């Protein structure tokens, strides 16, 4: 018996439900999918869509990059030093318990409205979950592999480069994926609070002026950007190590 896979039907089903619901509601509350598509074309033609998406991606890239570097450093330090691990665990737990958007007002007082303020919120959002995953990855490395590398002449830095890094690649990819999505969520939220452009701003502004079409367009773009990054970038990296990780 072959299992039938209905993955292909998911998005059409969603659109259908949306459309049926929109049929029974006034268009200023829930517009039809094609109305949103027409709105997308208008925004595209005016060049506004590219400007907003570009602004958001720029912030995401900056904040995510800083968070990756920070998470690698924290995760590595935690894996190598038991003392540091014990010291950082409560702090990481605390910071992970605070929703990143709660930092946004403070960040804006500190850095003023603009690129840095929003980027800092992203860094805080992505850094800690990534650091924890990176550390777990390094700790999961088999002690035997480390010993083998040592008797084969690897020194401390070589252990990091030639054993810790490749052996923890599955965890690193997972960390990147988690970090990117956390950063993306925080970005949209922060933009809704204090930005003059970006996808988050687009959604917030749509809400304020009562334009449900603009809101739905923004939401769709937010979802699709995250989904495309996930399946195009991170799933591909995962496929590269799959052959030995599953063995």
């Amino acid at each position, binding site marked *: 018996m072959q299992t039938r896979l209905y993955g292909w039907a998911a998005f059409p089903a969603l659109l259908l439900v949306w459309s049926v619901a929109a049929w029974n509601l006034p268009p200023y509350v829930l517009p039809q999918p094609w109305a949103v598509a027409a709105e997308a074309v208008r925004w595209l033609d005016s060049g506004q869509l590219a400007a907003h998406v570009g602004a958001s991606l720029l912030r995401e890239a900056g904040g995510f990059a800083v968070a990756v570097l920070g998470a690698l450093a924290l995760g590595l330090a935690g894996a190598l030093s038991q003392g540091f691990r014990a010291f950082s665990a409560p702090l990481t737990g605390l910071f992970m318990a605070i929703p990143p958007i709660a930092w946004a007002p403070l960040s804006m007082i500190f850095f003023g409205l603009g690129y840095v303020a929003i980027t800092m919120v992203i860094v805080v959002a992505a850094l800690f979950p990534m650091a924890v995953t990176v550390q777990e990855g390094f700790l999961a490395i*088999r002690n*035997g592999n480390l010993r083998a590398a*040592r*008797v*084969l*002449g690897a020194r401390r830095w070589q252990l990091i480069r*030639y054993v810790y890094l490749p*052996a923890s690649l599955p965890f690193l990819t997972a960390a990147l994926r988690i970090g990117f999505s956390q950063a993306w969520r925080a970005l949209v939220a922060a933009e809704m609070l204090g930005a003059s452009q970006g996808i988050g701003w687009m959604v917030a502004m749509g809400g304020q002026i009562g334009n449900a079409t603009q809101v739905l367009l923004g939401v769709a773009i937010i979802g699709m950007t995250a989904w495309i990054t996930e399946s195009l970038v991170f799933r591909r990296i995962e496929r590269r190590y799959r052959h*030995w990780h599953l*063995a």
Partner: protein
Amino acid sequence: MDCEILTSPSDSRIGALSGDRSGGAAFQVDGVDFSYDGTHPVFRSLALTARPGEFVALLGPSGCGKTTLLNLLSGFLPPSSGRITIDGETVTPEMPALGYVFQSPQLFPWLDVLDNVRFGLRMTGRLRDAEQRDKAMAALALVGLEAAAGKFPHQLSGGMQQRVALARVLVLEPRLLLMDEPFAALDAITRATLNEELLRLCGRLGQTVLFITHDVEEAVFLADRVVLLDIAPAGIHSELAIDLPRPRRLRETRRLERFTTLTDTLLERISAIVAAA
């Protein structure tokens, strides 16, 4: 199960692998005490020496501290007192003269077989890429696995993996090989084949070998001398010289009356150790 036929590499390949054939290192354990917690000694005034090129099998009942002993011998653990030296130098895990084969192959799963064997050469970084490749291939030829160079560890059988692990160590031309029950996890046929293989390699490369095992017949078949370990806290119970002729072949050697006498002697002594405990 391993069914592959072992190839006999030509002498020129081995020449390429061991440039200078200075042979084995002298190994000395001198009055070593060790304890994990400072109160319960695991070893007390342990003394053990190996002549250059000698094959010493360390045999002991389980629980006698074989793993601890190997950690000491390889420098992973420092002795509480006493000294462990290779050619007069205090031993450390990174010492280039030392080769260590673990009970499980411990191959790096993200590297193919050739890169696993090359690993040690890359760490020292003294050779160019092409030279590293040549040496690694020569080492693979020594264990009859040239054809597997492009495969990944999980594609190999347990016996083949352990051979790769051996090649990975041999490529560095160690003068002392520490082997921690390297074939214990393998099936009987593979194990017997690898025992013969190991003797052939040692005969040609001439390193000193310390081979830990709990298998009496394996110890007698391989070694020049069998050292019996007492149950902890203790040192060495006794030694037995193995005066079987070389080269040894599995079927012929095991049929010798002397082989039976030697294994019987050892089995009796082990029973005595266990009974006294």
